């Protein structure tokens, strides 16, 4: 039986998978100074196609969900930030229980050989 994940903090970060999650955790650990953060995905929902399911599940934590002040979704843009944004935004919109963004904001590409 998998460990039960308790959502305890005010910030939750949703990643595409455990590899991304570990990467982000390491960045936060090195950077320091951030408040405690909970991470998803849990055991069964992962991938950029499953953010909607993660959001549905997160709301199912009820009282824990009511204490959350922010959910940060981190997805690989695959060098297509606009379409990635729309794809993720449409998942958020389909859940219907969350506010979502109309427009995206991304860092301008500085060099042609390095993606934004």
């Amino acid at each position, binding site marked *: *039986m998998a460990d039960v994940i308790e*959502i305890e903090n005010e910030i939750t970060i949703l990643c595409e998978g455990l590899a991304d999650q570990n990467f982000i955790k390491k960045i936060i650990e090195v950077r320091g100074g951030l408040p405690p953060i909970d991470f998803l995905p849990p055991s069964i929902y992962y991938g950029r196609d499953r953010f909607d399911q993660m959001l*549905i599940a997160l709301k199912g*934590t009820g009282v824990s969900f009511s204490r959350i002040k922010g959910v940060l979704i981190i997805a690989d843009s695959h060098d297509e930030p606009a379409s990635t944004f729309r794809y993720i935004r449409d998942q958020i919109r389909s859940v219907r229980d969350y506010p*979502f963004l109309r427009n995206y904001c991304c860092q301008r590409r500085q060099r042609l050989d390095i993606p934004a």
Partner: protein
Amino acid sequence: MGKVVAKGYPVDEQSTHKSTRGGAGIRRILPGAQESMRTSEYRMIESVEIQNFRAFKQTEMRGLSRVNVIVGDNGVGKTALLEALFIATASNPEIATRFRQWRGADNPAATGTAQEIYDGLFLDLFHNMSRDSIPFISVTGSANDSRSLRIFYDVGEPTVLPFDTTPRHPALSGYTPITFEWKDAEGAITKSTPRLQAGGLAIPPLPPVTLDASFIAARAPFPTSQNARWFSEFSKRGREKKFISAMQAQFEYIESLTVEVDMGNPVLFVKLPWIESKMPIYLASDGMNKLMTILLHIAHSQGTSTFIDEIENGVHHSRHPRLWEQLLTFADEYDTQIFAATHSWEYLQAGAPLIEKFPDDFTLLQVYQEDGISDVTVIPGKNAGAAIASDLEVRVKRKR
């Protein structure tokens, strides 16, 4: 990796949840499910308001469904929630005295003044055990069967002293009684004021209820004779087979289930292949007896509700998935709404696939407490099923 900045952008939609009624596809999908016995629209409690009942100060619940699973830490009010719903759904103050027994109170000879004895029986129903905190429970039903209950110290009721030849108990002096006042959807009021007498508590006769809600307490013994009588009633109408099939689906080795007379009382007996004679079901297996009790209560409470405290107790975890299916199947067939409390993560996990399959038929009620006040969060089946399937904790802990 790209970054999406999530600050300062307009909100397009706010969180909304619209409650839905029970799904229609269950009978076609679940094994063992049969054609529904219902002829009219499904009856159930859709919303509840509780004021000043035990640790609940002010609570509202909307979006209830056919199977409502109650979770929460110890001592936050799961059982109190079941009690509130049961006493509002039923129509007899005697139920309040059962709560004491179910919670483990024994019944020593009452001593003290009449008021002390009376308060000892009923004051715990009042929030903070304060006479001024008048309990009020309102349930809104789906079939014009809404009703409410108010419990209050009735200063307008005179104290009646028993008029008999036996020496009067010195404690039976003046006291202020409590009145239970039920009001139905048409505004008709049913009142009952229990009174102390030398022999005990006298409860005035009340009109019989047409729909009989039922309660399976966590600590009380299973009602052996009652189960046998209910089974016999179904058997007389040729409807015992679905109980036997359900029991055999869980315990495939059961050869028969019959009502026999044991020490002058009706008792359910089970025939097992490795024993020549039949044996009482309570001797065969506690889990078997528990399952039969649950199924009979659901069937008996046709058109109203069954309340089950600590549903998982006594049932092996391997039988949990089928228990979930049987709950839903029987609730559907008998038009019974279920409220079941559990502590068990295994039990919740076993139900996740069914909850995700029929999200409109399930609701998770998270009972929690802050600063000694109980409250409830209603989680739709869609969210609850996904959370449990994702191993996200839904059994909220007590917060001081």
